[in-house]
């Protein structure tokens, strides 16, 4: 739980808030978890849902803030510069995931980041495997479009 929250949120305080939200949801839905055919996948989905909500909140706050997020210091060495660029890339990817519709974001994160089988994702999301595949393919295509400038080989995004 802690690791999946961190992988998506990547911010200490946000990760704490997200984990609390996820634990609260698990507690509220404990009856559903007990009866669910794949409780592990359901708990994973609850965590990813909570992390997605955090990304969405972050997007809303970001809109209200100044756009000068990462001013580069004048005396910057290459390593630190790389780190800043990496941070910018990370923020851009997280922002893109937050722009996806919820179901696409959850399906993409469960499939690509957590490498869950389609069957488990379908059980957690309460839909068919075909629907999950469509969510993943659409989410992947959108991310490819939005993040093409970050990708060294932006071809072959079409999912089969």
């Amino acid at each position: 739980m802690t690791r999946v929250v961190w992988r998506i949120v990547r911010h200490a305080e946000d990760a704490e808030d997200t984990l609390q939200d996820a634990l609260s949801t698990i507690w509220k839905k404990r009856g559903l978890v007990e009866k669910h055919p794949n409780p592990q996948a359901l708990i994973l989905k609850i965590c990813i849902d909570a992390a997605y909500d955090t990304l969405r909140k972050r997007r809303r706050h970001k809109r209200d803030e100044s756009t000068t997020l990462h001013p580069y210091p004048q005396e910057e060495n290459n390593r630190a510069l790389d780190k800043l660029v990496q941070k910018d890339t990370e923020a851009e990817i997280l922002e893109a995931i937050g722009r996806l519709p919820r179901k696409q974001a959850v399906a993409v994160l469960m499939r690509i980041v957590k490498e869950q089988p389609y069957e488990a994702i379908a059980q957690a999301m309460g839909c068919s495997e075909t629907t999950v595949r469509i969510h993943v393919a659409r989410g992947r295509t959108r991310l490819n479009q939005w993040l093409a400038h970050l990708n060294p080989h932006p071809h072959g995004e079409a999912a089969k």
Partner: protein
Amino acid sequence: MTKQNSNRYPIDNLLRQTLKDDLPIEVEDRLYIHLRRFREKTGSAGGNLGWGFTQQLIKSAALVFAVVVFVILLATAGFVPLTDSRNVLAESLSTLTTSLNVSQQISRSNGMDCSVETVTGEGKRLNYSIKWTPHRTRVQVIGPDNFIVKTLQIENDRVTIMDHIDDTLRHVKDLEHLDDPQFQPVMDFISPAYLQERMQMKWNPGIYRQRGDCDEGTFTVLNSQEKADMEIMVDLCTFLPMKMTTYRPIPTLPGEEGEIVIRVQFAWETLPTLPRIIEQKTS
């Protein structure tokens, strides 16, 4: 996801590389504080999950802990490839009861020696000798030539570090201010309280296996790549840990064992005599 698929969908690689599993230890500790608070809150709410087996645990002082650890185990069991939720419940219960017993026995221990062998990323080995007594902990760093390099002593909340090479002695305010990197790999083992807390809150076992009729059981803590991050071998007569092995996770090579990072061998001096609150169940 195969390598071919990764090549077909380069965005996948970008996502995995960027959203990598690199949870910093200090953040992990903070998150586990929330897990602990969750346990306390759900316990004070007197929550009844409605599971039949919890009836057997009612009136047990460990009920509150059991309920919450069970929920956490369900979450961590997400790495176990089981489709039948009943199997998960049974395995989680078995894991839970054994881990509870281990945790209780550790808290009742009166003394212990343990040897720790660490291997760095460059293959450099370093050994530690740790001795617990009720009022004193002594940690010795043993160099490649079997000479003691440093000694950390904790006595009556007084933390002292002796450097045997420079022949210097210095005092540290408390363990939180211990900044010597040579002692960091063994901080989990420096006291029963530390070890017990790690067993309860940090090393959530994904798999528990009992070896046939043998008096040994093994907890396996899995990482997000479904690989063994750690194995804890437990003596099922005393419910005390015997050996602990931590592996370095290798995310890119499926099916390949990780490199050993830390090996710990425990030798308990005094065995507790109090009865266990929860009897072990085998599934």
